[in-house]
Every structure is written in C-alpha cells, then in structure tokens.
C-alpha cells in the first residue's frame, strides 16, 4: 500500500480529537453524548482512549514509507 501524507495527518488530527474527548470524559461530569444525569462516564472515556490508539496506529500505516534496499 502506498502511503498518503494528508491521510496520515488527518488521522493524527482525529487521534488528538479522540484524546481530548477521552480526557474530557475522564475528568468532567457531563451528560454530553451520554444518557442519564451528569456524571463521569468511564465507558465513553475508555472508548475514546481506544479510538485514539487506533487512530495513531492507522496514521502510522497511512504515512509514506521510505523504500528499503
């Protein structure tokens, strides 16, 4: 697969957004995108943490690779 720098950058931006969302859900009592009264939503935080890691891995796959001898 040939790499794509714009796609790689896009995935990194996505990773940063997911990471911010994870920090938000770990630290803030909220009902944003969640059911029930405002609370710390660990499930949301863990899901966004996993998505952050996957986006970083995907960005690494998408980046152009140097040709090996």
């Amino acid at each position, binding site marked *: *697969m040939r790499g794509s720098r714009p796609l790689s950058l896009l995935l990194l931006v996505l990773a940063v957004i997911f990471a911010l969302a994870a920090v938000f859900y770990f630290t803030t009592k909220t009902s944003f995108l969640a*059911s029930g009264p405002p609370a710390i939503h*660990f*499930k949301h935080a*863990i*899901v966004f943490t*996993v998505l952050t890691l*996957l986006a970083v*891995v995907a960005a*690494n*796959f998408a*980046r152009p*690779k140097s040709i090996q001898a």
Partner: protein
Amino acid sequence: MLSAGLILFLAALQGVTELFPVSSLGHAVVVPPLIGLNFRETSPAFVPVLAILHLGTAAALLFLYRRDWARIIVGFFRAAVRGRISDPDERLAIMLIVGTVPTGIIGFLLQDPLKSLFGDPRAASVFLIVNGGILFAAEMFRRRDERRRATGGAQVLAHEEDDPAYERVEGLSLRTTVIVGVFQAGALLPGISRSGITMAAGLVAGLRHEEAARFSFLLATPIILAAGLLEVPTLGSDAPTLLVAVAAAVVAGLVAYASARFLLRYLRLGRLDPFAYYCAALGAAGLVLIH
C-alpha cells in the same frame, strides 16, 4: 437481586447460546417468558450478571485460542510499530481490528435505542426467525457454489479442509473483513446471533465452515471482553455476591468452552441448517405462546 439458582441457569444458557449461532440475547429475552420464569432482560439486576457472564465467556475463548491470540497480539504490535503488514499473524491482527471497529462504534452509538428492544420478547422472536433465515440462506449460497463448481468440472471434496477452493481466515481481504464486521453489528438486535451472522458472512465470502467458526470466535472475543469489562465500573449494589459471581463466570466459561469445541468439531462435516431450523422454531414458538 437475582437468585443464585437463576444466575447459574442464565450462566449455562449464556455459555451455550453465545457461541452457537442462535443468539444468546434472543434466548435471554424469549426463553424466560416461554418457560414461565419471572425475569426480564431489562431488569437492572441483570446488567452486572451479564457483565460477569461475558467475562467468563471471553476467558473461555481466550483460552481456546490462546496460541492464536499470543501470535495475534505480538503481530499487532509489530505491525503497529512498523506501519506495515508483513506476515499472516500481523494480517490477522489488523483484520480483527478492522472487523471489530464497525460493531464497536455502531453498538456504542445505538446502545440506548437498542436496549428498548430487550424488553420485547415478540420482537426478539421475529429476529430469531430472521436469524434462522440468514443461516439457511448462507448454506443455500454455499450449496449453489458447490453445485456450480461441480458442473464446471471441479472436484468438490467431502472434507472442506482438503478443498483449495475454500479459504482459511488469513486468506480474506481487508475489504471483506470490514463487510463481515458491519454484518456483525446486526447482532446488536436481540435474536440475531453474532456468531451466526459472522459465520454466515464468512461462508458467503468463501471460508470453510470450520474457519468461518474460527473467524467468528476470534472476532467475537474483543467485543465480548469489552462488553464485560466496560460494565465493571458500573457494578453496584445490584451485583451478586463474589461467590455467586465467580461461580457464574466459571459455569459460563466452561459451558462456552465445551460449546465452542463441539461446534468446531461438528462444522468439520456438518452445516448450519439445524441451527437455522431451531431458531425459526423457537422464534415461531415465542410469537405464538408469548402475549
């Protein structure tokens, strides 16, 4: 709080039905009212029980495929660091992630509207009949493919493992894996089986029966494990005592392990049709007998 006897019954039911292509959720919704048990899937006391049963089932699957998982995890880290896939283990690791993400995202986004269906045994009965139809259709497609190959002059072997026309999991394309992953999201509906829908998709994609089951079990493991682990922080006063929880997890795990071993052995020669007829019959019984 649910009684210890009921929890152990649900553990055995979960262990059998989670891996057989017959929908554990559909059974948990339809079977209790059918046999006169005063229990509803929507009961708040069931959530911690379900989380514990999921952990037991996931442990059984991890143990069953422990060598595969060791290679898959090492393969994932190798591929993730290098940013490229260079061997079958790395490929399988990426396939499992690609196949799991659609269900994870769809399930996470739709969990609340889907939970409203958990209290409706008649809706689950209809989905059980649909599940039977999916299994039956997958086998029909496979038979048609075998007939087409036979009329084309190709030799169709009795043992699929000897037949080069049908693939191992590692031979699937990433695009097919995404499609199977999206199909897996259908199992969020009570009555549609996760293992059934992924086995059916695997068969249609050209996997051998046993490999379709292996792929289904490997794909199911992260989802089942996550379903259990994500509920752990919410375990509260409704959680059963530690002794009952451990017993339930062990029962669910042992029954799931035996079910998986049986199914893999059965699918070396057998087909999914009996499960299709069973689902259709249970769904019909639910529609007729539950009011």
